[in-house]
């Protein structure tokens, strides 16, 4: 075990830091620290321009293998990249789903043609992606997919019909990956297919969901015989669940460290307020600030352990499996801490009628952190069953 980075890595740190200092300025100044969760709708055009700038600098797909156009950085350098990006206030990436999910998924499961078709566009920031996983009525029961895909021999296309929900950035996206049932007689995780569906077509209808923040980061997406070319299915019909599960695994990668740097920025903002408004002298607030600090540091150490592949006692699995439960709970508590540090001032919104402050959005939006991508309850089931080997819930005798 060692904490220090190598000299090469420190030189790399210098190169990304100075590139960011140079580029994240001028017209991009105003998007610094913006566009994170709950703020994804802000400054979209500017952030899209920023995606091009990143691509020009070769700073997209830094963890992708070189043969797929990525930068092929080592884990250490990816850690550094994300640290410096967040430290500099790099805005929320409009291309994060393509880079973090679609790309790795295609590299793992896609055909050579699919890789050649889609990967360069993602790297260039030219095509944005959204995801079509959740369905109304399915909730945590992800395998309960009702969206159907039917192959139409006449047009040589798949036709997708159904409804997806909680799709962020749907209006801005060019493509959506969709899990749909290819075998109409199947149930659960069998008989599913994984499709790459263009969003700009008549069969796709996007309806924003107004959330408790008053804003609409999320959407419902209705597919009504939406067309998808025959070569836009990943793997074979029936492979959908395998691809989807593999894809979920990509969410626990190096980018978690970038997320943590955003958390650090939020934490720092709260500390600054506490120092300014006197909350810093309230003993219970002091305890909670220290606790948030402890939690964030340990979140980082957990990730470092996962990334270093600490496999003793199967701990790789374990430190990765707790990640979602850990960060979502921590982040939700941070949102609450922000309000309590502010005291009565926490109630006052930015402007009428209902533009919330960033910390108010944090407070409200983090209530979703413990729900989407597998609720905390689901996470605990997974940990108990897969990491600890506890028995599954017995199947009910009668349904």
């Amino acid at each position, binding site marked *: 075990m060692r904490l220090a980075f190598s000299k090469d890595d420190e030189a790399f740190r210098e190169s990304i830091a100075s590139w960011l200092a140079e580029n994240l300025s001028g017209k991009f100044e105003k998007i610094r620290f913006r566009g994170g969760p709950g703020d994804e709708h802000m400054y979209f055009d500017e952030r899209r321009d920023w995606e091009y700038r990143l691509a020009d600098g070769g700073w997209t797909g830094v963890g992708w293998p070189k043969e797929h156009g990525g930068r092929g950085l080592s884990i250490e350098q990816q850690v550094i990249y994300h640290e410096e990006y967040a430290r500099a206030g790099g805005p929320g990436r409009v291309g994060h789903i393509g880079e973090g999910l679609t790309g790795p998924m295609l590299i793992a499961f896609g055909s050579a043609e699919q890789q050649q078709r889609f990967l360069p566009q993602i790297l260039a920031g030219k095509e944005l992606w959204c995801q079509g996983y*959740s369905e109304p009525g*399915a*909730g*945590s*029961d992800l395998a*309960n997919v009702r969206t159907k895909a039917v192959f139409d021999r006449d047009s040589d296309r798949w036709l997708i019909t159904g409804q997806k*929900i*909680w799709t962020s950035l749907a209006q801005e996206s060019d493509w959506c990956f969709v899990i749909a049932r290819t075998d109409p007689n199947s149930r659960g995780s069998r008989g599913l297919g994984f499709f790459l569906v263009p969003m700009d077509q008549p069969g796709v209808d996007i309806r924003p*969901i*107004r*959330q*408790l923040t*008053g804003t609409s980061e999320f959407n419902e997406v209705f597919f009504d015989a939406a067309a998808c070319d025959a070569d836009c299915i990943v793997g074979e019909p029936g492979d959908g669940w395998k691809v989807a599960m593999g894809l979920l695994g990509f969410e626990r990668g190096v980018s978690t460290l970038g997320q943590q740097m955003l958390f650090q920025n939020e934490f720092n903002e709260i500390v600054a307020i506490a120092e300014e*408004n*006197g*909350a810093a002298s*309230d003993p*219970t607030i002091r305890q909670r600030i220290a606790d948030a600090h402890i939690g964030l540091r340990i979140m980082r150490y957990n990730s470092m352990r996962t990334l270093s592949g600490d496999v003793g006692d199967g701990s790789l699995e374990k430190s990765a499996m707790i990640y979602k439960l850990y960060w979502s709970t921590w982040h939700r508590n941070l949102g609450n801490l922000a*309000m*309590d*540090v*502010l*005291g*009565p*001032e*926490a*109630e*006052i*919104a*930015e*402007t*009428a*009628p*209902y*533009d*919330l402050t960033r910390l*108010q959005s944090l*407070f*409200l939006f983090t*209530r*979703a952190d*413990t*729900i*989407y991508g597998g*609720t*905390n*309850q689901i996470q*605990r089931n997974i940990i108990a069953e897969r990491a600890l080997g506890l028995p599954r*819930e017995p199947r*009910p005798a009668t*349904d």
Partner: protein
Amino acid sequence: MEFRFSEEQQMIRDTAASFLAEVSDSQAVRQAMANGAGYDESLWSRITEEMFWHAVHIPEKLGGLDLGYVELVAMLEQMGRCLTCSPFFSTVCLGVNALRVAGTEAQQKKYLAQIAGEGRTATLAWTGKGRRWDAKSIDTTYTLTKDGVFLDGRLHYVTDGHTADLLIIAARENGSSGEQGIGLFIVPAGAGGVSSVALPTMDQTRKQATISFDKVQVDAADIMRDAGDAWPLLSQVLDLARIATAADQTGGAERVLEMTVDYIKERRQFGRPVGSFQAMKHKAADMMLRAESARSALYYAACVADEYLAGRGTDVMLAEAASIAKAYCSEAYFFNAGCALQMHGGIGFTWEHDLHLYFKRAKSTQQYLGDASFHRERLARMILDAPT
């Protein structure tokens, strides 16, 4: 000793429930929270003219119903269940309470009669900007001159401060500090030098304003009791208001539990109602424990408030009961509303679903007049630092 609603109290509660079900449903709440005043004038008229609730604990001789705090709390609990938007809390639980506790006989005669008879609204303004809820938060000043008393300063977080007809103002003598030098004053909202700004708030069901005082002259007749030494009186008014807030919280804590139980009985996942999963059941049980205990803390505090207002209880008993109720109910409501959001999953996260309104009200009332940690420290002073 009898610790249950009397038949009459039960009736008052039931009447409140059915009236509010009619006039303060989700649609009514959403309309009221979107308008500038923060409430619907016609609802307020029905409350004052038809139900006469605003006069619930105004003495009979001043035109009130002369009922007690238990009855008041029974109404507030129902309003909390329905998220009712109205100037009831500010008028009755701040205004009337302040007049009852700190008003001279003449002031009570004049202003309580105005409230009872004309449905005038009132509120209390006392804190400056910041996160304190103790005497140190008072930074509006009063100056005694040969021409009378003048008020200067800016008062924050004033419930319904932009619509109240009558303002009761806490200010401190220029140069005083802490609990010394506090006075209470009655000022009509339209008085010269008074200006108010409504503020957008995260919880839209409870409106707030900032009120500025620029050399506002107060009539000698509108100086309330014990001026210069009125912190104890103000503190008792605040304790009564805390108990009232705890009633709102208790109602909300119960309601979100009911909504959740209803939802998880119906909602099916993995081939069974989600309410049959132990994780859900146990959380619901924890919510019920809190809702029931909140009620107990609340009703006890209401009884103590009755004793206090009847001149039989001490201010220490009132303070203890108020801090217990406010500490417990604040945490119970926020806990229950948070669990409810979690147990509803995505649907509870939408604007259309009412749950977020409860969640936000849980947060705003949690902070208001001191959160649980504030009240625990206050209780610790009573338990640990009291002279023996």
